[in-house]
């Protein structure tokens, strides 16, 4: 039986952010909203660090039985190794972006709308990662989806509103398809708990259909290749903190659910051809996303297309899960952490560039490095991680994937990895090249701007390097949890 603190920690993660959301909604003063947000974000990080160290040390998941009703009747919350790392990442990126957002908004109206929705978004994320009940996950998905849509709509421009409406339609359809899968599963097995379901699951037509619907829905939500059409618009038109959160974490939440269903709950249904199909779609996503990023005319659009490409890598690991599950799992977790931190840092620095320059059209950003050295530096560090250059987390993640592919004898995925890396370096060096060349022609920036708010982004950039340097420690920690 774990000590009391660890038992309370999970409910605290679900009550505290929600209570903060209510406070941020009711309290009229903006400065109080900011103080409360920073305070709670710090507390969440502390809770998540303690919880993750406990879970990863004891190598057994934390269980909380809600309402005192054991699973088939009630709901159980489970924090396993994967979940605890996701929680830790959510809280740290959340804190970094909270710091950034305090200085970001120029209008009080937008900021006062931002804070409560921001806390609803964090609640949704934390809820998805602790939930061990398929119907509860649906509610969390809805909370996540509706909060993201409203956060994009805050921006208030026509493009942002159209993007958020499209995102709403896609998100609702995705979660309804998920709910259909849940309905079929409940009809077949009569339970909703993940672990009980994993014991009961059989290979029959109903289960196959349920997995197909859930996969379709989650593919929509995490923008895997043929269903990615909504992502570039939504992520490039939102405000910088929101884009960062959407790209770094919200998409990963959908991936987390998909991964849980494929490899933990409905495993009897998963066949080699199915995972190969997912891997193929991932490969297409890597190439197509990188190509579109290379031709993107705007900085944030480029970063958004890069997310489409990077999501592909996660699915490349699917075919490797059959033969070498341990290694592939570690690679996936590593990749999620590395990409999350790098992409959040990248969107935040892109946001500050956009703010300072008043636009983000790439052609007109020549030589901007003399005005914004810190932003460009953070962008460059994040780029190194996305390309997979040696000291960064991205390098280790790709190296793990590569090793894994060779070990399981599916070397053809290595080709995609190389092409993806090359394309990523092409589109990211295009940005860096532009910003460093013709410094004498640098545009004169109007208005005041400061790079103080980039503290959070800088921390994230440092983390991407740190997880690259401490790779052995981290991989062994992840490996022990699985």
């Amino acid at each position, binding site marked *: 039986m774990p000590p009391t603190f660890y038992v309370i920690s999970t409910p605290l993660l679900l009550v505290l952010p929600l209570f903060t959301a209510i406070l941020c909604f009711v309290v009229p003063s903006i400065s109080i909203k900011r103080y409360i947000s920073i305070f709670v974000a710090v507390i969440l990080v502390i809770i998540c660090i303690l919880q993750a160290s406990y879970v990863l040390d004891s190598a057994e998941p934390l269980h909380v039985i809600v309402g005192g009703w054991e699973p088939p009747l009630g709901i159980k919350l489970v924090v396993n190794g994967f979940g605890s790392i996701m929680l830790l990442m959510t809280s740290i990126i959340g804190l970094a972006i909270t710091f950034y957002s305090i200085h970001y908004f120029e209008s009080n109206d937008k900021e006062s709308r931002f804070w409560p929705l921001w806390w609803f978004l964090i609640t949704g994320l934390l809820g998805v990662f602790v939930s061990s009940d398929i119907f509860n996950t649906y509610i969390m998905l809805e909370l996540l989806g509706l909060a993201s849509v409203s956060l994009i709509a805050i921006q208030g421009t026509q493009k942002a509103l159209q993007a958020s409406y499209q995102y*709403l339609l896609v998100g609702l359809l995705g979660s*309804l398809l998920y709910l259909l899968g849940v309905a079929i599963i*409940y009809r077949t097995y009569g339970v909703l708990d993940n672990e009980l379901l994993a014991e009961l699951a059989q290979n029959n037509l109903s289960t196959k259909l349920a997995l197909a619907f859930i996969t379709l829905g989650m593919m929509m939500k995490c923008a895997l290749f043929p269903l990615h059409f909504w992502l570039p618009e939504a992520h490039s038109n939102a405000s910088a903190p929101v884009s960062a959160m959407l790209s770094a974490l919200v998409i990963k939440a959908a991936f987390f659910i998909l991964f849980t269903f494929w490899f933990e709950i409905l495993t009897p249904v998963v066949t080699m051809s199915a995972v190969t199909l997912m891997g193929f779609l991932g490969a297409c996503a890597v190439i197509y996303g990188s190509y579109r990023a290379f031709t993107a005319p705007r900085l944030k659009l480029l970063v958004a297309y890069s997310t489409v490409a990077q999501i592909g890598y996660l699915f490349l690991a699917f075919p490797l899960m059959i033969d070498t599950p341990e290694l592939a799992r570690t690679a996936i977790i590593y990749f999620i952490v590395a990409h999350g931190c790098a992409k959040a840092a990248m969107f935040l620095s892109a946001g500050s560039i956009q703010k300072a320059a008043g636009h983000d059209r790439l052609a007109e950003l020549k030589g901007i490095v003399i005005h914004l050295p810190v932003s460009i530096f953070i962008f460059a560090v994040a780029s190194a991680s996305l390309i997979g250059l040696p000291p960064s987390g991205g390098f280790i993640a790709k190296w793990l994937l590569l090793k894994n592919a060779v070990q399981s004898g599916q070397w053809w995925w290595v080709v995609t990895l190389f092409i993806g890396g090359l394309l990523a370096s092409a589109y990211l060096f295009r940005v860096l090249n532009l910003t460093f060349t013709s410094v004498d022609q640098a545009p004169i920036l109007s208005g005041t701007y400061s790079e103080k708010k980039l503290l959070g982004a800088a921390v994230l950039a440092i983390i991407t390097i740190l997880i690259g340097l401490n790779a052995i420690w981290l991989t062994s920690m992840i490996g022990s949890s699985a």
Partner: protein
Amino acid sequence: MIMLTQSILFSICAAILLAIGLMGFLLTSDFLRKLLALNVIGMAIFMVLIAAASADPNAIDPIPHAMVLTGIVVAAAGTALGLNLASKIARFARSIQNENSTQQNKTVGSEKVRSEKHTPDGKGK
């Protein structure tokens, strides 16, 4: 031939209703109707659940009923948000159109290209 019970009948009805909703969502371009289609898909899923709950008419399972109640309320919330966004977009389109028409009235006689160039700037500010 299988026995056609009430539960199976409604399950089949739900599957066809789902097909109608999905096709409606994917084939229409009218965005209000897309929202209606999502609601129809929701109804179909609720029907699957409730038909499963009444498989044995003498022992109705309350858990799907609770799930559907939750689902109905969440669907209404999503629809409300969608309709608000749609109205806001429509308002934008209206104000831009007004701007266009006033600008066109002002620049009677000037080249068409110029007035087209003006509008994006006006939007940006």
